[in-house]
C-alpha cells in the first residue's frame, strides 16, 4: 500500500533514536547490544505473538498442503457463492473456488514478495548508506542525490508506473511475476534504507571507540565490519522488518489494482479485488473477509515484530 513513505518521517526519527541507544552502548562484534535486546525481546509478549504468527504464515507459504488438501484451482460453478459451512469453512467464491484453500495458498506470493523486497532493499540500501556515511564527501553527496530521485516516487505510484512499463501478463511463470514486483519495489524503496543506514553510521562514526580503533591503526574494512556495522545495524533491521509487512501490503494493493500479480496466480490481492465491488460485497462478504483478515494479520505480524525489535533496541520509549 502506501506506507513506506508514511513511515519515513517516523522511522527517520526512530532510526535516530535507535541509533542513539546504539551509540551509548559501544560494542565490538555487537554482542552486548544484541544480547541486551534479546533479553528485552524475550519478555515482550508482542514479540512472541508476532513470532508465532510469522512462523505459521511462513509454514503456510512453504507447505500449504499442511493446512488444506483442497485444490485451490478446482472450481465448481454450481456451488458458487456458498456461505461458510462445515465442508468449506470460509465458503465458496463466485467462481466456485474454495476460499479457505485459496487463502492458504495465497500466502506464498505475499511472503515471497515481502521477504525478497526486504532482503534486497536491506542489502542495496544498507550498502549505499554505509558507503555514503563512511566515505562522506562527494560520494556521499552523489549517492544522496541519486537516492532523492528514487525517493521522489511514492512507493505505490512508482510501483504502478514501473509495472506499467513491464507488465505481467496472465499466464506468465509465477516466479517471473514475483521477481518483477520485487525488482520494482526494491528500485523505489532502497533509498529509505540507505538514508537510515547513513544516518546511523554518521551517528556511530564520531564515537570515541571508533576514533580509538582508528588511532590504534585498525584498517578501514576492519573498522567498518567490526565496529561501525554492528552498532549501526539496529535501526536498519527494524526498518527492514516493518517494511516487510509494508511490502506485502503494497503487493496486494498492486494486485488489487490489477497491475501486480496476474491470475491464475493465487494471491490475496487478486482475491480481494475479485471480491470487491458493491454488489458482490453485499452478496458474498465472506469472499472479501477471509483473504483480508489473512493479509492484515500478516502485515500486522511483521509490523509488530519490527516494533518489538525497535523497543528492545531502544528502551527509552517504554
Amino acid at each position, binding site marked *: *500500500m*502506501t*506506507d*513506506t*513513505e*508514511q*513511515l*519515513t*518521517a*517516523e522511522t527517520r*526519527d*526512530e532510526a535516530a*533514536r535507535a541509533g542513539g541507544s546504539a551509540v551509548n552502548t559501544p560494542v565490538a562484534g555487537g554482542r552486548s547490544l544484541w544480547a541486551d535486546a534479546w533479553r528485552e525481546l524475550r519478555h515482550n509478549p508482542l514479540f512472541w505473538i508476532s513470532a508465532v504468527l510469522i512462523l505459521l504464515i511462513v509454514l503456510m507459504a512453504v507447505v500449504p498442503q499442511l493446512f488444506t488438501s483442497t485444490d485451490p484451482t478446482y472450481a465448481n460453478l454450481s456451488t458458487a457463492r456458498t456461505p461458510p459451512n462445515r465442508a468449506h469453512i470460509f465458503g465458496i467464491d463466485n467462481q466456485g473456488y474454495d476460499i479457505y484453500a485459496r487463502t492458504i495458498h495465497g500466502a506464498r506470493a505475499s511472503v515471497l514478495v515481502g521477504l525478497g523486497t526486504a532482503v534486497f532493499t536491506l542489502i542495496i540500501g544498507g550498502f549505499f548508506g554505509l558507503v555514503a556515511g563512511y566515505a562522506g564527501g562527494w560520494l556521499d553527496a552523489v549517492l544522496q*542525490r*541519486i537516492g*532523492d*530521485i*528514487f525517493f*521522489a*516516487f*511514492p*512507493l*505505490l*505510484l512508482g510501483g*504502478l*508506473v*514501473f509495472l*506499467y*512499463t*513491464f507488465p505481467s501478463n496472465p499466464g506468465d511463470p509465477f516466479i517471473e511475476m514475483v521477481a518483477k514486483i520485487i525488482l520494482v519495489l526494491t528500485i523505489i524503496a532502497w533509498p529509505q534504507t540507505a538514508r537510515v543506514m547513513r544516518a546511523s553510521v554518521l551517528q556511530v562514526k564520531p564515537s570515541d571507540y571508533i576514533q580509538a580503533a582508528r588511532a590504534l591503526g585498525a584498517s578501514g574494512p576492519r573498522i567498518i565490519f567490526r565496529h561501525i556495522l554492528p552498532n549501526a545495524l539496529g535501526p536498519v533491521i527494524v526498518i527492514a522488518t516493518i517494511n516487510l*509487512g509494508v511490502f506485502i*501490503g503494497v503487493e*496486494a*494493493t498492486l494486485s*488489487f*489494482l*490489477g*497491475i501486480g500479480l496476474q491470475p491464475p496466480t493465487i494471491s490475496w490481492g487478486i482475491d*480481494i*479485488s475479485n*471480491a*470487491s465491488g*458493491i454488489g458482490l*460485497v*453485499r452478496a458474498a*462478504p465472506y469472499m*472479501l473477509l477471509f483473504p*483480508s483478515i489473512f*493479509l*492484515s*494479520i500478516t*502485515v*500486522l505480524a511483521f*509490523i*509488530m515484530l519490527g*516494533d518489538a525489535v525497535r523497543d528492545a533496541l531502544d528502551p*527509552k*520509549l517504554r
Partner: protein
Amino acid sequence: MVSYTIRRILQMIPVLLGATFILFAAVFALGDPSAGRCGQRPCPPGYIAKFRAEYHLDQPLLVQYGYYLGKLFRGDLGTSFYGNPVAHELAIRYPTTIKLTVIAILCEVIIGVAAGVLAGIRKGRFLDNLVLISTLLVISIPVFVIGNLAQLVFGVKLEWFPPTAGQGSLYELLLPGFVLGALSVAYISRLTRNSVVENLRTDYVRTARAKGLSNARVISVHTLRNSLIPVVTFIGTDIGSLMGGAIVTERIFNVNGIGNFIFRSINQKDGQSVVGAVLILVVVYLVMNLIVDLLYGVLDPRISND
C-alpha cells in the same frame, strides 16, 4: 534562512530532472509508447512511424528527453487516449482530488494529534494501550480493505454516507477522505504519542514545571510545540502516500479524480496520460516536501540559523 531556502531549491532541481527522466525513460523509451493508441489491436506501421517522429523516438535518449522537457515547460503533457490534452484531463479532475486530500489531512491532524497527545500524557495507562493497539490494527489493514469495509458498513448497511462519490460533492467525499486518511491518522497518533512521551522527559519540560507553570501550559506550550515538529515533517512526506492511496480510494468510491484517472489510464494502456498524471503528482510531492522542509526551519530555530 534565505540561503537555506535557496540551497534547498537548488537541491530540488537535479531531483526533479532525474525523476522526470526516469519516468520518461520508463514509459517512452523502454516501454512501447504507442501501445494502446489503437485500442486492443497493434497499431499500423504508418501510425507508429508518425508517432515516433512526433516524440523524436528515433533520436538518442537524451535528445528525446530534451524535446520532452521542452514540451513540459510549455505545459504540454501529451494527449490522452480520448484525444484530449492530458493537461486538460488533469485540470478538470484535480479540484476533486485536492478536496479529498484536504479532508484526509484534516482527519489526520485533528484525530491523530488529539489521540497521540492523550496517549502520550497517559503513557502506559489504558488510553495509551487503546491507541497503540487500534493504530496497530489500522496500520496493518491495507487501504483497499479498509475502503471496502467502510463502504460496506457506513455506505451500504448503515447508509450514513453515500457509498460512491461520483459527483465529488463535499459530503460524498467525507467517507473516502476519512478512509484515505485513516492510515495516516494511525501514524500521526503514534508519532505524536512518541514525540510527546520523549518531550515530557526532557530537561526543558522539567524546567517548565520548576517555573511553576500549570500542567496545561507545560503540555500545550512547552511540550506540544516541540512534539509537533516531527508531525509537520511527517505530513509533508505523507502527501506522497496520500496520492498513492487516492488511486485506491478513488477507485473504490468511484471518485472522479486524478487517482481514478491514473487507474483507468493504466488499464487502457494510455501511457501519455499515466506519465503526465504521475509526473504532476511527483512534482506536487517534491514541492510539498520542500515547503515542509522550509517550515521545519521556521518551527525549529536550531535549523534555520545554521
